């Protein structure tokens, strides 16, 4: 099972090269490169892992093992909008459980699931640093704090 670098779009390859120059050892670029691939393609597939293994001189088993460690690296793609609700203590005290319930009801999915139309994926995450204005959630990389039902409704509408 060989992955040729020709299959990697040129822009992606350039991105990898630019990341590599920052580190005296190619392995330092592993996480950033995986994140780059995930950003471009939504997921890091097996072929990509083999490409990166070849590029960095790192075993594919190690790369998979590394990916399985970090919640931010995925083997499967998510919906168009990733909703990550913080469930850590301060947010929990301020109603993150209720936020989750509300979203589950509105979207009709469970935690870890994606809506049928592929629009939204709902996950529970740990502390996002929004403790001072809890409850908080992250949607597409943007932090939303001081959540209320109204704010959640507004946000979902904007994204639909």
């Amino acid at each position, binding site marked *: 099972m060989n992955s040729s670098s020709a299959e990697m779009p040129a822009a992606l390859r350039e991105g990898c090269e630019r990341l590599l120059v920052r580190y005296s050892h190619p392995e330092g670029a592993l996480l950033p490169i995986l994140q780059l691939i995930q950003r471009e393609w939504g997921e890091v597939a097996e072929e990509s892992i083999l490409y990166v293994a070849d590029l960095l001189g790192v075993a594919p088993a190690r790369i998979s093992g590394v990916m399985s460690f970090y919640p931010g690296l995925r083997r499967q793609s998510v919906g168009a909008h990733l909703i990550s609700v913080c469930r850590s203590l301060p947010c929990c005290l*301020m109603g993150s459980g209720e936020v989750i319930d509300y979203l589950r009801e509105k979207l009709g999915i469970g935690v870890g699931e994606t809506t049928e139309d592929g629009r939204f994926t709902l996950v529970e995450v*740990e*502390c996002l640093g929004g403790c001072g204005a809890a409850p908080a959630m992250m949607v597409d990389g943007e932090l939303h704090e001081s959540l*209320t039902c109204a704010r959640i409704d507004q946000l979902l509408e904007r994204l639909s």
Partner: protein
Amino acid sequence: MPECRLLLRDIDIPDIERIEAYLACGGYRAFGKALAAGEPEQVMAEVKAAGLQNRGGEWYPLAERWAPHLAEGVHYLCVDASEGEPGIYRDRKLIERHPHQIVEGIILAAYALRARVVYVYIREEMHRGRVLLERAVAEAGARGFLGGNILGSGFALDIHLHSGAGGYIPREPTALLRSLEGHRAEPRQGDGGLTLFGRPALVENVGTLAYLPHIVDRGAVWFREMGSERYPGTCVFCVSGHVRRPGLYELEIGGGTLRELIQKFAGGVRAGHELKGVIPGGISSPVLRPEELDVRLSPEEWAVPGGGDFPGAFGGGGVIVMDDTTCMVDTALNLARFYARESCGQCPACGAGTHWLQKVLERVEKGEGRREDLELLGSVSGQIAPLLEPSRTTLCSLGEEFAWSLLGLLRSFGEEFERHVVEGRCPIEKDRRIKVPETVSVRF
């Protein structure tokens, strides 16, 4: 007792995250001074004289960590911007709102340590922060504060932002370095000291380095006028939970009590409710009861909060306030889930032990607890982290955190745990509405 704003002094100035505004407030003046003097040892000496300690929860004096590198310097300075402990969010705010203060702090530290390369390990979730910090670094570079032969001094420095990929454990220094090297973020033991790619390295926290511009600009003596003899300076407390005004409050260390912080600054418990418990230092510090809040906000006063031989922990200044709507077993379970999820899994005590505690707490919370469960929780926690004599059954200190938290909860709210077991249900009425503080003002 007023606030003592040092790190937060200029945070409300419009556009302070841009270099023009920062320079106008005296930004990079400290760096200018250091370069002009031309002696990295002087910066080190100033840091030592100021007695600056790590603000990431460990409170070690920076000078102690830096001393072994006095002669040779380090090759890499890694900056821990990986803040992820529930209840602590100052680094995120400082990065988003006041990035140049941090950049200057980093540059000063790198200068003192003669580091050639800086990696800022920034949490993946800090999307906005990363963008702003990157821009600040670019702006500093454009002014000639970075790169080769900076301002003709011969000092050269590159700052790279390195995004984490999630997880709480990278805040542990050896795990952070391991993650930078492209591995699982597993803490390491060993006598080699901190290394990155085989070369000497140091890891310092963002919220700590932010003090450097102030110390170098106005001197160690001035810095020591704040705080206590052993713990000089200020601490940015993060208040969250059931208070009227959650947010960041910067106080002199020892400049007030925990009760004052909660009542006076954070407005006290929200209307119609009573204070039930306070986690004073981020979730790794044991909970305090309402009658135990008259401790001064200083690590040295924290040895025996509330008396007895139960060691408390000042921690990282993350104050989580809980009122009477809080079920402490729920709280324990919430923490258990956090730590079980975040465990790296290298050592059985943390990996399997925390999992075990979670499973038992799940039953107790549901009302399916057994009589022996409470003793079991205490005993297992004691095995993971004996309070009085450390046993090192965990590889790193993060493995012990939950055990301490749980022992604290059992000590302070044991009766509530018992009621769950005896009554077979949670005795606290649950409020199912989504709550926000009365004054919805996001402070900073």
